[in-house]
């Protein structure tokens, strides 16, 4: 892994998280997400490195957590140890909508079932965080799956190896064209 080679030691993500992937969300090519699953079952939703927004030349025009007239992810409030009040999400629940300067619109999805704990408000004021540090400070949301489902949530997701496989197949297809 690139990170470890440079630093000579596992990073925070390497130490605590397992990386899971969901590719081509809602059939849209390359709209890939990366779910960082902590050993304590908490999931951090981030953009995978192959997501169009993270490719060269893209800039962000706006980010909105208002996913419908009735629902804003920003208004999500949890209280107490059991995080009561958090919006319950299914795998394809939208988290936010991002518009790039060249007019493209992208929706970021939950990818896992669970209770929404928080969305990253920092990227609203500093969208560059999302582009520069998509795996850490530019995260999208934090979700707490149900205790009973903590293992099963990864059933619909790809491992790092499977993801790399998908990515290399795409590259191969591209070459053929």
């Amino acid at each position, binding site marked *: 892994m690139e990170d470890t080679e440079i630093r000579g030691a596992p990073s*925070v993500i390497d130490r605590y998280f397992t990386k899971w992937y969901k590719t081509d969300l809602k059939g849209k090519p390359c709209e890939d997400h990366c779910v960082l699953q902590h050993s304590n079952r908490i999931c951090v939703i981030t953009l995978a490195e192959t997501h169009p927004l993270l490719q060269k030349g893209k800039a962000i025009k706006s980010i909105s957590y208002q996913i419908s007239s009735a629902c804003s992810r920003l208004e999500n409030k949890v209280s*107490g140890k059991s995080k009561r009040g958090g919006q319950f999400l299914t795998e394809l629940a939208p988290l936010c909508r991002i518009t790039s300067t060249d007019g493209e619109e992208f929706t970021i999805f939950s990818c896992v079932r669970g209770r929404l704990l928080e969305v990253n408000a920092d990227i609203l004021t500093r969208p560059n965080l999302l582009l520069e540090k998509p795996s*850490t400070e530019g995260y999208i949301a934090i979700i707490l799956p149900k205790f009973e489902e903590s293992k099963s949530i990864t059933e619909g997701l790809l491992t790092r190896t499977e993801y790399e496989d998908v990515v290399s197949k795409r590259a191969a297809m591209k070459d053929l064209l």
Partner: protein
Amino acid sequence: MLPLKEKDRPIVRALLDAGCCARCILRFCCVSLQSAYRQNYEDLTCELQSFADTRETSISGDSAEKEQQDVPPCKKIRLDIEKGGDEDGKDVKESAEKTESNICVVCLGVLQHFCDKDFAKKIAETVMAEKYEFHSLVLSVSLPAQLSVREHSAWLLVKKEMREKTMCLGKDDVIQVKEAYKWILHSLVSQELGVPALAKSLFEVSVGFKHPETDGDCHFLAATCSGCFKPAKNKQSVFTRMAVVKALEKITEESFRRKFSCPPKRPTTLCALQEIQCLHVPVFVAGRYNKFSRTLPQTPWVIDGERRMESSVEELITAPLLSAFQAEGFNFSSSGREDVDVRTLGNGRPFAVELLNPHKAQFSTEEVHQLQETINKSSSKIRVRDLQIVTREAVGHMKEGEEEKTKSYCALIWTQRPIEENDIEFLNDIKDLNIAQKTPLRVLHRRPLAVRQRVIHTMSAQYRDSHHFCLQLRTQAGTYIKEFVHGDFGRTRPNLCDLMKTETDILELDVESVDVDWPPVIPEPESQKGRSSLPEHQHKDTPPSQEDIQCHPLGSLF
């Protein structure tokens, strides 16, 4: 000679007819002379019967005289309840009870059969068998709740007698069953065990009685005073003593008499001993601990019944204590705690162990010091100092420390961009830095989501190489150091990455000091001075050396 007066006679007669035992009768006559109760039961009963049978003579008012004049031969009252049934036809006719039992309708036999020398011997034997060390004891008695109901019933009977004779005595003047019981039993038990029986002591002997036959006596109260009886999860029966007493205070005389017989019905069985329990008050042992291992949790680490890591600070400290004090359990608490992979250096972290039901509680200072040595010899992963016995109140100082006092740390930092010595000097000048920490992801599954304002009082940086330096920090209690260093996805702000303008990570962390000045320092005895029980490097208050960086196994524990 019984301290009874003329006015008591009708009460004595009424209670004898009702089936009350001699001692309960004395209680209702408000006799507070303890020696009266200690008299032999049979003699007491005879005297009382004579007193009752004596016809009133005119004016003299001297009960002694009356007895001499009018005393009929003392009837043999059958007290042999176990055998029951008729023995001697003659006695059967004379004794009003006939085939009915002689078990007292109020105390159910507690004041008849459970306060003699034999019973005291039985208590003494049970206590000795449990091998406790004690110099005095408190005797506590628990009686079935229905005794209050029966007492109330007998009281109403007495009240009626008094009303007719225009006397007035309050219910509070009546001697309680427990009180009379202890008056008799205290000296007997004291003699058997050779220690005084006091009102307060570190050692308690609890004697519990049960009488299943009459448990139903309380039930009618639930209908009349339902508010008093709320089912609680821990209690087996909703008819607790407290609840029954409360209900009896509320219920009217008419309601009571309608539902419960006055005098109470005679029981056919004797009260039985439920248990004799011994309990010693807990002993608190405090001290400070160092943790030298990066693979030792503070408390046992068990997931799904499987132990994830061998041993723990808690187990290493409490095992010898449990054994020496012969305690049945413990509660371990400390002034904060550290992660598995963090060492605790310096003076160590204050802790306190509550040892439950210790069978041995007296230890000299030397003996406690010996215990400390035993703990220290048992493992090189921890060290204990200032071990001492403290009071429960003293333990409060420690928890104060957890929230209010500062802590000092030393962290080994990795930087992504190459650095030079003067790149880290600015950190030394930062004072009282305010940071806001959202609940770290690594504990978010079990803590509420919140933002914590914390203060980093001072910092001091020591250069190591182009990608490493050592950072010492003194912070407010409750600061998450690891998250301050790596930023926790930007959820701690400002963080060290922000300050250093590069990605930083924490490789190692040590607690240098926990700034609580409790428990008091116990100086090493003369014989120990000059002898260090630890290898040099573990005492160092200076940050880990270059060698540590290479050798230390940087595992996934971080």
